[in-house]
């Protein structure tokens, strides 16, 4: 850094010379400016290179090794996983978990954003504050509470069911119920994020468009499909794809709530990779499990990026 400021100092000292020499001096100035810029980015570049890009490539290398990391096994880990019943369940459950949760979050978030948009803006602050609470509590902590509410003997939900004369439900003890519970917790946690994003998008739709639609005789449904949704399309797709990535990669909820059980029915990629890689000590196999996320993430990331770029062009225009 001191080197850079030294260069800058020299540039200032030589300023009169630069004015005289014209073009070449200006070029040197630009070169120095970009040197300083590069130096300011250096910590970021180093961090991304050493702690994100290198591990990502290393994961691919690891996935091609045997358990002791001594021998190259090619795609052996992947074919081994695909033949295992447990992993087929993981594939199915990961997709079920992510897709169901994201669809529910998107729909409920959309409804909530519309309800918020209906009430006067001076009252929106307090309601928004209350609705965002699930998103603010650290997920590991709130999932512990959910676990306690699903407790087999002391479940607070079962107490309510019993009051209405229903039988107790073994929430986390039976496959499909446990699957439903993990999805429900994810929806509870993630819906506020959708609500906030959609509300921001709704506010940016110009009021004149609705007035024009009303003059043309559009009803509420037509306004929704012909004005609101097209105007919000970009934010909806960015939010959905982004949430899809995060939900696919979810670890906290399943790990704390069920740890993959009962009978591995609720395992998703992250928790299964953790069980295989850390708990059973087979890091290459675990790395192969998490690499199965890569194609899905890559496709989603491509579309998110496209959406964000289009959005910034719209903002600039």
């Amino acid at each position, binding site marked *: 850094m001191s080197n850079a*400021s030294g260069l800058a100092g020299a540039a200032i000292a030589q300023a009169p010379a630069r004015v005289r020499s014209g073009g070449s001096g200006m070029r040197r100035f630009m070169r120095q*400016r970009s*040197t*300083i*810029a590069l130096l*300011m*980015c250096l*910590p*970021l570049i180093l*961090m*991304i290179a050493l*702690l*994100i*890009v290198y*591990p*990502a490539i*290393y994961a691919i290398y690891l996935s091609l090794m045997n358990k002791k990391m001594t021998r190259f096994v090619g795609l052996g880990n992947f074919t081994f996983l695909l033949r295992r019943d447990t992993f087929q369940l993981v594939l199915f459950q990961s997709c079920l978990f992510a897709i169901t949760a994201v669809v529910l979050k998107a729909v409920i978030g959309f409804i*909530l954003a519309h*309800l918020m948009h*209906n009430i006067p803006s001076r009252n929106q602050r307090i*309601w928004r*504050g209350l*609705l*965002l*609470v*699930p998103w*603010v509590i*650290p*997920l*590991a*902590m*709130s999932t*512990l*509470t*959910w676990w306690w*509410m699903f407790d087999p003997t*002391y479940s607070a939900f079962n*107490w309510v069911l019993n009051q209405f004369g229903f039988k107790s439900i073994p929430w986390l003890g039976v496959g499909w119920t446990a699957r439903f519970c993990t999805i429900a917790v994810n929806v*509870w946690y993630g*819906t*506020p994020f959708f609500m906030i*994003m959609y509300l921001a998008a709704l506010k940016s739709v110009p009021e004149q468009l609705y007035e024009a639609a009303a003059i043309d005789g559009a009803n509420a449904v037509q306004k929704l499909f012909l004005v609101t949704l097209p105007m919000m399309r970009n*934010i909806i797709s*960015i939010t959905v794809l*982004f949430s899809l*990535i995060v939900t696919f990669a979810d*670890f*906290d909820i399943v790990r*704390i709530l069920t740890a993959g059980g009962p009978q591995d029915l609720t395992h998703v990629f*992250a928790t299964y*990779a*953790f069980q295989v*890689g*850390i708990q059973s000590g087979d*890091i290459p196999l*675990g790395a192969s499990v*998490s690499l199965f*996320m890569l194609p899905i*993430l890559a496709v989603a990331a491509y579309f998110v990026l496209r959406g964000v770029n289009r959005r*910034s062009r719209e903002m600039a225009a």
Partner: protein
Amino acid sequence: MSAAAGTLGRAPRRSLASQRRWALWGSYTALTVFVLMFLVPPFYTVMTSLKSSAEISGQRGSPWIAHHPTLENFIYLINYPTFRTFFFNTVMVTLVVVAVTMVISVLAAFSLARMGFWGSQTLATGVFLTYLIPASLLFLPLFQVIGTLGLINNLWSLALIYPTLSVPFCTWIMIGYFSSIPKELDEAALIDGAGYLQMLSRIFIPVAMPGIIAATIFAFTVSWGQFLYPMAYLYTTNQMVLTVGIISDLIRGDVFQWGKIMAACVIAAAPPVLIYAFLMDYYISGLTAGATKG
């Protein structure tokens, strides 16, 4: 709008007004239902944290209310050295991570938004892409990296790893804020003879303060609540942070610890919730910045 309705005559306006009123009350009712549903878990956390072990084990009547509220769980935790260790470990890691994150991302964002160099556009896109790479894809190779560095079961491994989660998004937010500052300001500063670092510290940081606060809050919440990395890399209680510490130390297959566990959750959730309560607008602007700003 009302003027336009007025010209159309009386009857439609009245029906429009009543329609509006019904929509308003319907919205309030639906919102109340959602808020109540959303607040059930936090409410139950607080209620259980106020119950004694005896009350939890001999449950009579509704579990949703603490019949004999007591602070004994909180007093136990405050006097429990292991829990204090968790708390201070979390505070230390979070402070270091927030400081490191902000230095890296403000410098980089200023450079990417204003100065530029060969490939800086690609780098800005790359930063956003790295934000989309989840921790669950990297934690196993990073386990090997941490092992090579001799940092397994060491608290500071987290301080090294967490910036990978916080820096990309913070840089992205800051690029957005810095780009929105008018170019005339830096031209004026350059004419007055300011260097780039002076320009950053005297103009950009003060003007982009809302963005800096939003980014700081983001870095704080990420490193305060992370669960996967500490779960994978730490295994003795003296190195643990709150999220894993509560789960691995307080849960011992004993049902009647739940009062203490829930009290621990209240304490662990308090800092992010308090920050949110006081700085809600910054929090939300940070949240939506990713998609709406840039």
